């Protein structure tokens, strides 16, 4: 744990808390608490939009995914940004004109319908919780290297601070926290990218001379009569795990005495015979003890960071480019003769131990710089459909996220809503271009944490020194704080304003409504803490993709049809929200990824895909049209 990291971390947290205290006096009324009084300047709101949107998923998740699977991670950047086009051209101004505090207000503006109030509030809660999970997972990932605390501690710290922020000052403080954090995130990401360009690309990355480059070991083996022999090693076992052949060996001297720990090696056929590549691995034994690379896990004995380029435009050995420009950087990595060493993993039972082995894979630059490593765009029909489904959900999801929609109520006019969206597009678009450089920078600078790729960008910053790491990590932490605050404001509005005040019709004074909002914020915060601990280890951007799918399925058809189809009825809107939620969440819960979470084999999952958008969005639209047509007469007679 670095002192500077702790100091900067504490400074950022204190700054956030002071802002909350300062703005608490403006949050006495419901308008102040839920919509910042509706008088935030559009330029501040635009950057605050960026702060809301550039969450842990964008900064930690996208960079981590690009660092491990290349261009496929950048697809999230493209989709997330494209979603703002829907927000700007279709949603921004009508949302501001129709609503007051919450997304349900806008949907219900024409109808005063109990069913819309109930379903829209539930939808807001579900989408916000889906979005909260990755933010809390990101918080846990950050705290471990920053403060040396366990994942759960990070989640609890974020949860507690955010509950304090939201419970004291609501939307006003959340807006200024987002403004500050959004601005700092873009500025320091630019500094990081500039540092990556200045360092250039090397086949032997040594973090500016701070960490000597260690070449991984490769051995040649002989095989006769099915028995493999390796000089200086005793072969103990050989396993074929889904096509990956692993050999368990131990180093021995000439008298067959053990001289080192047992290790797993990856077996490959080469023109010279059999080649064995060094791997990294951890085991959890029957007593629950964790061993890493053959020794007990400790602060000193952790998985080594990975990610190198082994050939630069066909040249191997000791090659360095020196400082490069932004185009050249991408051109070098994407060259078909460049070669990147990525790492994959397999998990299996080894006797009474659970083993996970990470092994290297060499991938050419042109494959890294196009889609295909994560999303199998050239694969089976289902795999292609998954890709289309994701891109659809990202495109339509942004404009349906409750914590984004409520930010349209914090500005004074529809024109300000439009202008703040344009500021957001500029800031967010610029940041997303930077994610490509941060992700690829991590991929070739040996800074990728095998067990948690979410930390790729902060660890890349660490390779340039403690200050940049501490600053980037503290901002990333503020990123999580800000986004979680926005989500909790949206959730507390759904409970206090939509459910209790409007749906249940409980008479409340302005003061009571704010108090209830604060209590709701506390409850949602506790739920977020629990889920953040349960979902530890999943890529945060992947999780956010699900939140977008649920938002796009539940909310967007209702908003669009309300604006553009005169025959839309209240029952049609309520039905489409319910069907959208059930279809999207149902598909996610039955997906292979969730099956793994349940502790079951992914292959046994009832569905072979996990991106629901392509089914759930059209289904929600169809439901709205059919139910609206069926309820036309009733609407007219009413």
């Amino acid at each position, binding site marked *: 744990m670095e002192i500077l990291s702790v100091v900067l971390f504490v400074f950022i947290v204190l700054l956030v808390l002071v802002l909350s205290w300062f703005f608490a006096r403006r949050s006495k009324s419901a308008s102040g608490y839920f919509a910042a*009084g*509706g*008088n*935030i*300047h*559009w*330029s*501040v709101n635009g950057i605050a939009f960026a702060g809301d949107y550039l969450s842990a998923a964008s900064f930690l998740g996208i960079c981590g995914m690009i660092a491990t699977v290349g*261009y496929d991670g950048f697809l999230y*950047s*493209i989709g997330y*940004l*494209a979603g*703002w*086009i*829907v927000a*700007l*051209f*279709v949603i921004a*101004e009508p949302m501001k*004109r129709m609503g007051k505090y919450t997304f349900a207000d806008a949907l219900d503006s024409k109808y005063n319908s109990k069913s819309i109030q109930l379903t829209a509030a539930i939808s807001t809660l579900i989408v916000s919780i889906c979005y909260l999970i990755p933010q809390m997972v990101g918080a846990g990932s950050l705290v471990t290297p920053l403060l040396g605390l366990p994942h759960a501690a990070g989640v609890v710290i974020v949860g507690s601070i955010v509950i304090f922020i939201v419970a004291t000052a609501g939307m006003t403080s959340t807006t*200024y926290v987002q403004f500050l954090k959004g601005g700092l995130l873009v500025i320091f990401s630019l500094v990081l990218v500039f540092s990556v360009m200045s360092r250039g690309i090397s086949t032997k990355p040594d973090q500016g001379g701070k960490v000597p480059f260690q070449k991984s070991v490769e051995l040649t083996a002989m095989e006769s009569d099915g028995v493999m022999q390796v000089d200086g090693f005793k072969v103990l076992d050989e396993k074929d795990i889904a096509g990956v052949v692993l050999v368990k060996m131990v180093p021995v001297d000439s008298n067959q005495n053990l001289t080192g720990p047992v290790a797993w090696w990856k077996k490959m056929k080469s023109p010279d015979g059999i080649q064995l590549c060094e791997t990294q691995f951890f085991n959890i034994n029957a007593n629950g003890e964790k061993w890493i690379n053959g020794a007990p896990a400790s602060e000193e004995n952790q998985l080594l960071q990975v990610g190198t380029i082994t050939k630069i435009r066909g040249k191997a050995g000791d090659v360095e480019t020196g400082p490069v420009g932004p*185009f*050249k950087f*991408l*051109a*070098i990595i*994407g*060259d*078909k003769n460049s070669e990147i060493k990525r790492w994959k993993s397999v998990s299996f039972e080894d006797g009474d131990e659970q083993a996970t082995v990470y092994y290297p894979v060499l991938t050419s630059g*042109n494959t890294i*710089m*196009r*889609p*295909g490593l994560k999303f199998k*765009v*050239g694969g089976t029909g289902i795999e*292609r459909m998954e*890709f*289309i489904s994701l*891109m659809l959900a990202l*495109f339509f999801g942004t404009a349906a996220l409750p914590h984004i929609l409520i930010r349209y109520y914090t*500005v*004074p*006019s*529809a*024109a*300000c809503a*439009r*202008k703040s*969206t*344009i500021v957001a*597009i*500029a800031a967010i*678009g610029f940041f*997303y*271009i930077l994610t*490509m450089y941060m992700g690829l920078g991590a991929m070739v600078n040996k800074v990728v944490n095998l067990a948690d790729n979410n930390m790729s960008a902060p660890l890349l910053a660490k390779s340039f020194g403690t200050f940049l790491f501490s600053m980037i990590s503290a901002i990333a932490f503020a990123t999580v704080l800000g986004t979680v605050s926005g989500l909790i404001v949206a959730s507390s509005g759904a409970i206090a304003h939509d459910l209790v005040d409007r749906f249940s019709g409980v008479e409340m004074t302005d003061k009571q409504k704010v108090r209830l909002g604060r209590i709701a914020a506390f409850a949602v915060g506790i739920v977020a803490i629990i889920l953040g601990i349960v979902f530890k280890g999943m890529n945060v951007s992947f999780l956010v993709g699900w939140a977008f799918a649920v938002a796009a399925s539940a909310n967007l058809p209702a908003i669009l049809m309300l*604006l*553009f189809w005169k025959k839309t009825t209240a029952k049609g809107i309520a039905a489409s929200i319910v069907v959208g939620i059930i279809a999207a969440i149902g598909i996610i819960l039955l997906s292979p990824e969730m099956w793994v979470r349940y502790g079951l084999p992914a292959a046994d999952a009832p569905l072979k895909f996990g991106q629901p958008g392509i089914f759930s969005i059209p289904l929600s639209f169809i439901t709205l049209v059919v139910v609206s047509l069926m309820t036309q007469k009733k609407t007219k007679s009413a």
Partner: protein
Amino acid sequence: MLHEPAVVEGKDYAIGYKMRVGVIMFVLYALVYAGFVIINVSNPVKMESIVFSGLNLAVVYGFGLIIFALILALIYNGLCTKKEALLNKKTESKEGR
């Protein structure tokens, strides 16, 4: 702290125009976005083709989608602001008379 005064909005006579322009621009962007998705699933190797300065189609199209979004947004704002000024001022002066 950069707070604008809370204002009660007057009637906006440019709503119809802004909606029409918004929908046209939305469709335009959606088509370009769909093109990106279609190339990826129908001919993913095409994304490797070098377009300029050693940058492949995937990078140029991806960055292009982000920059195109900003350009469209600025054009949209310019058109809307102009129309708002024209229609709302014209109507206000008529009402004033």
